[in-house]
């Protein structure tokens, strides 16, 4: 039942004709390199370039990666418009935002 609803929502999203803008955010020197703005349905991928592991963890708990070692990536698909703030849970002074609109 649940999967049917999700499949339905996905069809609805593609039917609206908004093009997804998949994008990559690099993590380097203890920083998320940029805040990004994407359209609904876009996938954001993070890639850690530091020798120290980092995580990607949303403040509201919507998404949370495992520990990303050097070269590891993590992706999350943003379906709903909104402003998503996230941190590295290992180094919480690292903060950035994904805006979906």
């Amino acid at each position, binding site marked *: 039942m649940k999967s049917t609803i999700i499949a339905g929502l996905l069809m609805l999203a593609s039917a609206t004709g908004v093009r997804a803008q998949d994008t990559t955010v690099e993590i380097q*020197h*203890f920083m998320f390199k940029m805040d990004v703005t994407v359209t609904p349905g876009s996938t954001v991928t993070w890639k850690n370039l*530091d*020798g*120290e*592991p980092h*995580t990607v963890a949303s403040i509201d708990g919507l998404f*949370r990666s*495992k*520990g990303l*070692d*050097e070269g590891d990536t993590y992706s999350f698909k943003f379906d709903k418009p909104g402003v998503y703030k996230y*941190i590295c*849970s*290992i*180094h*919480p*002074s*690292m*903060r950035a935002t994904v805006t979906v609109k």
Partner: protein
Amino acid sequence: MTDSNRRDALKCLGVGAGTLFTMTGGVFSAFDISEAGAATGTPLFLQISDTHIGFNKPANTDVIGTLNRSIDFVNAMPVAPSLVLHTGDVTHLSKPEEFDTAHQLLLRMKAGDLHVVPGEHDVIDGPGAEFLNHFGKPSDGKGYYSFDHMGVHFIALVNVMNFKPNGLGALGDEQLAWLKQDLWHRSASQPIVVFAHMPLWTIYEPWGWGTSEGEQIAALLRRFGSVTVLNGHIHQIVQKVEGNITFHSARSTAYPQPLAGSGPGPGPLVVPADQLPGMLGVTTLVARKKKIALTDTTLA
């Protein structure tokens, strides 16, 4: 044995050992073990930190090897430490196999009970389930706890699970209330040892090297005659004495980190291979009368 002979003998051990703590007249002090000719007394306990099992980068491609050398150093001590305190970052990425390997290696130490507090690298999953599976028994799965040993009151604190947006570690309200409760009825003459992963005093705020409730914690400890506060996290020795409180930050057995504020962030520091052993180590604490002396030993 003269000091220089002793120094040479210890250098021959070629280990990246820890810090030695001795207690003399109610005050802990720390010194490099290679210069510890005067550090007689029974070893009380050993601090080991930041073993980072799972790390495999140019800063140290053999963290198991350097941990083993540290353990060999401990096993060669004339008197076995009656306690071992591990101040966190047991593993690098909180993986189950990293915990298994680390735990097995640590149990090779010929010493008394092993007490471990988590570092942020041990709780990447959030609640720290795997860490607590291995090391959560003394705290009933909470992570923080206290116990008495040879007349000294030991307090294990967890400051890596309630991060504040400024990046500092934190205990959180519940743990802070527990700490108050744990201390209020104690005699001021009982020596206290507090250990946690991140510094319980602010060393460098831009890199999160501190604990938000540091001042409140220090206020609870000030009335005691002998307090030793131990941490890891920053992979280098930094020490501060404030009244009767000695703050001491231990070396890692895995890799060094830069001095505060030097470079883009507190990541692994790559140094020439011949310099690495001198930047890794452990700390030993020795009790004499009512004071504790600390000795830091490197693997060089």
